[in-house]
Every structure is written in C-alpha cells, then in structure tokens.
C-alpha cells in the first residue's frame, strides 16, 4: 500500500483484505507491481485452443496457431471473438474435431 505500510502480522492480513477489496481489473499480460503477469484463470489451465497465451505466458505452447480464431470462445465464452457463425452459416465447423487435444488440425477454415 502507499500511505500505510503493514508492520505486524495482523496488519498484513488487513492489507491483503484491502487489496482484495480495492484491486483493479488487470489487462492480460500487464505487469503488476511485483513484476507478475496477470493470467486469466480458467482457459489457460485447460487444453483450450486459441487462447491468447499459454500457461507460461507465451504463445509457443498453444495448441493451435495464435492467428487462428478462438475455438472455445464461440461456444463457452462471451468474448466477442471472430469465430465462425456456429448457429447459421458454419454449423458443421467443428464436426471433425471431437477432441480438441487430438483433432484440432481437423477444424475447418471457414470462408465467409
């Protein structure tokens, strides 16, 4: 904290509670005060193709090229990603990809 520096153990607990209550929303990969990178919880902890960063914070470990649009976004996430229209124009986009871990190469490229 800025004005208050915790001295005893209880003060460190108060500080943690204050930070938890007042902490800001962090952009992905923004470096925090201690040099930490904020990773989104959830997606990167699973095998989910196309997320922005892998679990190490880079793109080398992604299961599909980062240029490809997000596979998971178009089903399970509200993020406005540019993914094929699953409901109307590209209903069978992922039909050949039963398991993303094994079959990600079979995801079709869709041309609008």
């Amino acid at each position, binding site marked *: 904290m800025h004005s208050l520096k915790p*001295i005893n153990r209880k003060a460190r607990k*108060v*500080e943690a509670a204050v930070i938890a209550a007042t902490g800001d929303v962090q952009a992905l990969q923004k470096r925090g005060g201690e040099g930490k990178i904020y990773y989104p919880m959830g997606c990167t902890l699973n095998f989910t193709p196309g997320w922005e960063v892998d679990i190490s914070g880079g793109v080398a470990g992604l299961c599909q090229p980062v240029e490809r649009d997000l596979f998971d976004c178009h089903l399970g996430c509200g993020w406005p990603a540019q993914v094929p229209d699953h409901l109307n124009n590209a209903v069978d986009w992922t039909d050949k990809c039963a398991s993303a871990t094994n079959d990600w190469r079979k995801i079709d490229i869709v041309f609008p």
Partner: protein
Amino acid sequence: MSTTEALTPALTYRQCEFHAFESAGTQFVYLVPSGSIFAIDKIGREILDRVKDISPTREELVGFLTERGYAPAEIETSLMELEFSEVIQRGDLIPPKPKLPEKNFPLQRVVLNITNQCNLACTYCYEYSEDKISKTDGKPKYMTPSVAESSIDMLIKESGDRPSIHVTFFGGETLLNFPTLRTSVDYAKRKCAEAGKHVEFSLTTNATMLNEQIVDFISEHNIGVTVSIDGDRELNDKMRVFSDGRGSYDVIVPRIKMLLQRHKTNSIGARVTLSSGNSHVRRIYEHLTQEVGFYAVGFSPATANPNRLYSIGETKMETVLQGFEDLAWEYRDWALAGRQHGFTNVNDTLKELHSGMSKAYPCGAGLGLLGVGTAGDISLCHRFVDSDVGKMGHVDKGGVDHAARDQFLGTHHIGARYDCHTCWARPVCAGGCYHEAFVHYGDTSAATLHYCDWIRGWNDLCLRIYGEISQQNPSFLDRFSEN
C-alpha cells in the same frame, strides 16, 4: 467519483479508533479493535490531522490536500487505503458487535491445585491472606492421584481436535504433593499417547522443596518451571517468610541455582510479586539475573484490596512503571543488537502486539483453561479454586458444567464490559484479571479500572519499542512468528 462516494455523498470523515504513536522518527497507528500496526506516511498523517480537526467532507479534504501540493492520484489512493483499512470513515462510528466464542470451546489447559497447603506464609498470598476467597474447609489438603487422573481425562475429552494440551501443577506449594505430580505426569503421557495428542507440563513452586531427585524428574519430563521469588535477601524476606517469620531467601537460592544448573530441557522463569514494600524493579531484575542466574524474570503487582498494607497503591505503581520503562528500554537496546533480554513482561506484550492479538477475554480462564481443586471441583482458574465464585463442575460428577461456563463467557465478554468500549488498549487488555476485579470490586465482570492508566502507559511504551525494532532490526521479531 468512487462507489463509496456515490453511496455516501454528504457524510463527513471521522477518525476510526486507533492509537497513534511515534518511534525512531517514524509515525505509526495501532488500529482498534483489529490490533494491526501500520507505519503511516506524510500524506496519511495530514489526512488524519485534518479529519481530527474539522471532520471534512470528501470535497473539502481533497481540496485541502490539493492545496498542500499532493497529486490527485496520490490523494485518491491514500484516502481509499485509510478508509478501507478503517483508519478513517465517513459517517458515524459504529463498532462491529463482538462475537461470542463457539459453544464448547476446546479446552487447552488445566491447572491442578494439587495441594492447598503451603510451607511459607507470604503476607500478600491471595490464597491465605485477608483477601482469601477459597474455602478449603472440608476439602482434602492434597489431591489424590485418582482426582488428578480424572482431571486429565476431562482435559483430553474437552480438548476436542486440539493436537496439543497442557497440564500445569499449582498449589499451595506444588511440591508438597510431589507423589501426585509424578503419577499425573506418567498418566497424562500414557493417555495422551493413546489419544494421539501431545502433552506439555509446567509447575509453579516457591523452591523450598527442590532437591536433585525432583529436579531430575522435572528435567526428564521437560517441565517448565516458574519460581516465586521477590529479589535479594532483604526484599524477598519482607513478604516471603515461613510461618515463624523467618525469611525464605537463604533456603531457596541454593536450590534455585541447582535447578538452573541441572534442568535444561524447558524454560525456568522467576516470578516477582511487587508490593508496597517492594517496587525496586531494576534492583530485583539485576539480582535475579546476575546473582541468582535466571534468564527470564516477570513482574506482577500483588493482587489485593487497596486497604491492605501490602497493596501497592497508585504512588508505588508509578514507581513500578518507571522501573518497567527503564528495563524496557534496556530490552530495546538488546533487541536492536540481536540479543534476547530476560524482562518477560516486555517479551510477552511484544509477542501479542506482533501477532495483532485482539482479545475478547482478558485471559484463557473459563475458555481454554480451567482450574481443579484438591477435591476435584472445577473452577474458572487456579485463583478461584474452591471459592463460591466461578464454579464449573466436578471432574468425577459430570465433568465440566457447560451451562455455567457458557453463562460466564456470555457475561464476561469484552462486548459486555462497557467501561472498555472506548479504550484503545482493549485488544491487549480486554478488561483485566477476573480475580483482580473480584478482590477489588467484588465482581468478576468489572473492568480493573484502577490499572487503566497504567495499562495504557505500558502498551504505549511497548508499541514504541515494537515500532523501533520493526524499523531497525525487524529480523528480531521473527522469534514471535512461531506458532
């Protein structure tokens, strides 16, 4: 506009409860009731001063700080921190209602008064003096091994999930009943091994009965020892006398030296009772550490009705606080040099300040600790054994009286001690000793008001020492982080 501002647009800032203090050029705040300690910077202090002076609105406060040259982002951050940490707030101060402990709070310690007999006749003794509250008529003089074993069974049963429990042996003079002490230690170790618990022991003694055989037993079983002694021959023998008036100093000192030399497996502390004839803190401390050889010495004023001749009185208490302060600064000097000083009153308070303890009760009596008298009567603590006050069952007749215990805890909670509600020292004090209150006011639930100024003075002193150590030798405080 922040969310909090939007919710409370017209309210003015007030200070929450805290005690501000300065040490070694740094400003600190000790927050109440949380017990947290923060160093506070310049803008923080200016905010507190302004809030104290005029109770400003947020707009007024931001305007004042802007004029003082602080940047908007810094003002915003500082105000948010001070508000969320509950150093300042907008609107009236409404302290949170303290919570009562859970029912059947697990027991951690029993104090077994294994005898109500003593071979000394110390003038100030609360068990035998004019302020005696125990009624030992018709009670056995010595606790039998059977009663002690029932007490240990009760402790194990009532300790719930606690992995470690503690048995303290007390008296009278504890070592007058060494046979029960010895069998109790063996029994407790066996039963705790069966129950998968760790057990520790301690005892208090006047040292008159110590011999090599007893000391070897104490050492073998890692028993912590507290020795009652009041200083050098002249000071000790004023009050600590045999029934014929003979002083005890010459009898006990050779035995204490033998104890210190032979017993290395647990702590040995001296416990000094200060009274009207004996308030020479430094003289006592230096004698007991340098001449007798103690590493740890703790002081406590005699508990007494103020009309008693040996009652320490207000004037003497000022002398005592000066003596404490003198020794406490010496403790500080040692701590800054990385050395452990033996003045345990400072050490104990620093430990509580370091953890940020915020007590709902002044001590563990009735909560994690119970006393047991020679006949097996359970009481609030060892000081109330066999008295009409604080009865809490019998070890062989139904065990702990939980209804009586709950009733006591409900009426003695800090929330029920109205005198304490505006005191900044209540996280550490919580109203003071029940026995002290009973002897002084005839009421265990009364706050020990005759000590209030003294306790605030003492806690302020220890906070300043803590603050200085935290800035200049913080690694010294690591020793308080255990557990």
